[in-house]
Structure formats: structure tokens, C-alpha cells
């Protein structure tokens, strides 16, 4: 198949970027979207043009590294898919495809399609941990966790931090990401001890990074590759309200 691309090119964070047009012939429809970009880069290198920079790692849909805006939607036209798991068969022959970086003030563009998502790391650092005693491993059944509880904690923990929730949000809110990280720990007995400090610190960090307010449009859940439920946001709000009311 033949495709026409409009790709965002930007030298570095401080430079102004713009959309550049490229054409690719003989694209195999079984290629993944990232493989298509590899082919584009090969073509650009042969022409002596700087290749397009984009983030990627496992290419199995589990690491959360890849993620670009494809035709105005994070990770492209499919629901709950990462960019690497999107294939060219989802596009028509001759289609024009716009590729832009995820945009948010808290995600500055580093180069082309690569954005700096370290704001997510700092949210995790502010409270996404539990304090444990060092020493011998404790007896495994000392802390009982039922299977349904473990499963629902895992549903929240499944967030791969790709940033699609922020990219799709009209307010650039990181509520889905932050709430998934908070809920994951709030559900488990090990996380109860620091629950109050955790939610307050993580919400404060989320705000300090410059993310917007969640207005519950629920767009994030639709594009999330891991199908993280928006009800985690409700639970974050619950934990936050509880912490505010009960803290000394």
C-alpha cells in the first residue's frame, strides 16, 4: 500500500516544530505502525535527512514506551491499543496519516515525536511505594490477600504509564495515571499504612507538574492500552477526601 505522512519535526524542546510531508510506497499492511516508521527512517537516512525520533522499547504492547498521536488520537484509531500493536491494515491505501507527539505542558517535546514523561516518574517517587522492614523474608501467608482483591489491585497496577490518558484529555489531566498508582496500593494491606500521605503527596506532585483538572469526560479510559477504569479516579477522589477529613 501507499501512504502519505505528515510527521511533526522538531529539533529540540526550545525550537519551533512543524509538520513535514513524506510519502511511502510498498508499505506491507501486516507491518506494525512502528515498523512503518522504521521503513520511513531508512528512506530518510538514504536521502541524507535526519531520521524521525520516536520512543519505543518492547514492541509487544507491555512496556508503555511507545506512544504518538496518530490522526488525532493517541495510539491511533483503535481502542485500547499501543502504537506498536497498531498495524498498517487499520489504514486505507493512499491515506494521509498525521503523526504528532503527545502534547501537554507537563510532557515537553524532546525531539520530533519523543516527549519527556519524567513527570510521571516524579509522581511515582512522591508516594508510589510502601515501606517494608528489611531482613528475612516473612512467612508468605502472614498477610492474607484474597484472590479478587489481588486481581483488582493488579487491574490498577497494569498501567504501563504510556501517557495516552494525558494526551487524549482536553485538560491534560493525569488523573487516570495517578489514580491507578494510588488505587493499586490503597487496595492492598501493605499499602494501608501510608495511604493518607500517599494520596496527598501524589496529588500535590501531579499538580506541581502542571497537569490539568479531571472533568470526567472519560476519554482516557477509551484510549488506555491497559483498559484502566475511570472508577480508579473516583477511588483516588475518595482516598483524597478521606485523607483530608481524617488527617491530624
Amino acid at each position: 500500500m501507499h501512504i502519505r505522512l505528515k510527521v511533526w519535526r522538531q529539533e529540540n524542546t526550545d525550537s519551533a516544530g512543524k509538520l513535514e510531508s513524506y510519502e511511502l510506497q510498498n508499505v506491507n499492511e501486516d507491518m506494525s505502525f512502528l515498523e512503518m516508521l522504521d521503513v520511513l527512517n531508512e528512506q530518510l537516512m538514504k536521502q541524507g535527512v535526519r531520521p524521525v525520533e520516536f520512543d519505543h522499547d518492547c514492541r509487544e504492547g507491555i512496556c508503555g514506551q511507545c506512544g504518538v498521536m496518530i490522526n488525532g488520537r493517541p495510539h491511533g484509531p483503535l481502542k485500547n491499543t499501543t502504537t506498536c500493536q497498531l498495524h498498517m491494515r487499520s489504514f486505507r491505501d493512499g491515506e494521509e496519516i498525521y503523526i504528532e507527539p503527545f502534547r501537554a505542558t507537563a510532557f515537553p517535546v524532546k525531539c520530533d515525536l519523543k516527549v519527556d514523561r519524567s513527570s510521571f516518574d516524579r509522581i511515582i517517587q512522591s508516594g508510589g511505594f510502601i515501606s517494608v522492614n528489611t531482613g528475612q523474608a516473612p512467612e508468605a501467608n502472614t498477610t492474607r490477600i484474597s484472590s479478587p482483591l489481588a486481581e483488582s489491585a493488579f487491574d490498577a497496577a497494569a498501567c504501563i504509564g504510556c501517557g495516552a490518558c494525558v494526551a487524549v484529555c482536553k485538560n491534560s489531566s493525569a488523573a487516570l495515571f495517578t489514580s491507578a498508582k494510588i488505587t493499586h496500593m490503597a487496595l492492598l494491606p501493605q499499602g494501608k499504612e501510608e495511604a493518607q500521605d500517599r494520596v496527598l503527596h501524589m496529588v500535590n506532585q501531579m499538580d506541581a507538574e502542571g497537569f490539568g483538572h479531571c472533568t470526567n469526560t472519560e476519554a482516557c479510559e477509551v484510549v488506555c492500552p491497559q483498559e484502566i477504569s475511570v472508577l480508579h479516579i473516583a477511588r483516588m477522589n475518595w482516598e483524597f477526601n478521606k485523607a483530608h477529613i481524617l488527617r491530624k
Partner: protein
Amino acid sequence: MTQTTLTRKIWMALTGLFLCFFLVIHLLGNLQLLLPAAESQLQFNAYSHLLSGNILIKIISWVLYASIIAHVVYAIIITAANTRAQKQKYHYDRRGTVSKWYSRNMGLLGTIIFIFLVIHFRDFWYVYKFGQLPLDARGNKDLYTLVMEVYSQTWYVGVYVICMVALCYHLLHGFFSAARTLGVYHPKYVRWIKVLGWIYSVGICAGFAIIPVYVHFLK
């Protein structure tokens, strides 16, 4: 208490829910306008007089004014912060396909409602409180006749109904969003609130819209 994105939303939710509660009371009072003319006039005027004289109602009305102002002020603060959170726009934006249009346009719907409120306060609230109104047979200010006159104008009824549609969509998102902000996360109650939100929003807005339409065409 330091202001976070979540605390601002809590204020939006609490003021919004108070306004939701007020709408129920307001609608119940207004439904008296649907009674037969003679009975309706005396009863509605007596009801208006009762409300304007009661100290409890006075306190509630101050909370109401404060809620409207706080709801608007917080909406502006939140919108300004959200605009700062996304300075650069997408050149090709299809994000609208994954959420409901009214959930993304609460500010626009809210502005329509605000304009309606200004008209509404000028036509009824201001005239009742500070204007000269003739008295009815029992010596109460004749608000009923004023309402009938205003509702006899076709353009006014049209604007009223359009504003009620805007209010309906605003409530539809607002009611459920408030519950979420306050932290209702249990899937069962989330489902109930969605259904309740629909019943509430459509019920309130249809109720309000029926009154001027009925008065205009049938009274």
C-alpha cells in the same frame, strides 16, 4: 487548605449539588402555575410572599447566591489552569470521538445558563424585590400576572426552552461528575447514579420547560 486540582473540583461538586437541590424546590413551587387561573394566582402569590418573608429561606437564598458565584469563579479558575496545562494544540485533533460532546463543553453550556440567569433575575427577581408590583385580592404582590405577561411573548418562551435544553445537558454531566469527584467508586452505585442523573436532569428540565409552554399556548 491548599488548593489542589481535586479540592477545586470538590467545591465545584458541592456548590453544583446544592444548586441541583435548589432546582427541585424551585420547580415544585413553579408547578403551582399550572393550576386553574384564579386559584393559581392567589396560591402562587401567597407562596412567593411566604418565601420572601421567611428567615430560613433568606439564609438559604444567601447560600444560593454564594453557590452560584463560587461555581462560576471556580469554573473560570479551573478552565484557566486547564488551558495552561495544554499550551500547544494538536494540528489534527480527533479526540472528540472518544467522549461525549456535552462533557467537553460544560463551560459553554454553563455560559448559556448564566446568561439565562441574568435575564431571569432581571425579569422576576429584581422586579419582585425592588420594582413596583400591583397587589392581588389578598394583598400579596402580584407576581403571577407578571409571569403570565412575560410568558405570553413567543420569543421569550423559545429562549426559555432552549436554555432548559442547555441546562439538561449541563446537569446530565454535572450530576454524575459531582458524584465521581466526591468519590463514589463502587460500580453498583455508579450505575444507579447514572440512571438517577438521567431521571433528575430530564425531569427537572422538562418540568421547567412545560410551564411557559403551557402558559403560552393554553392559558
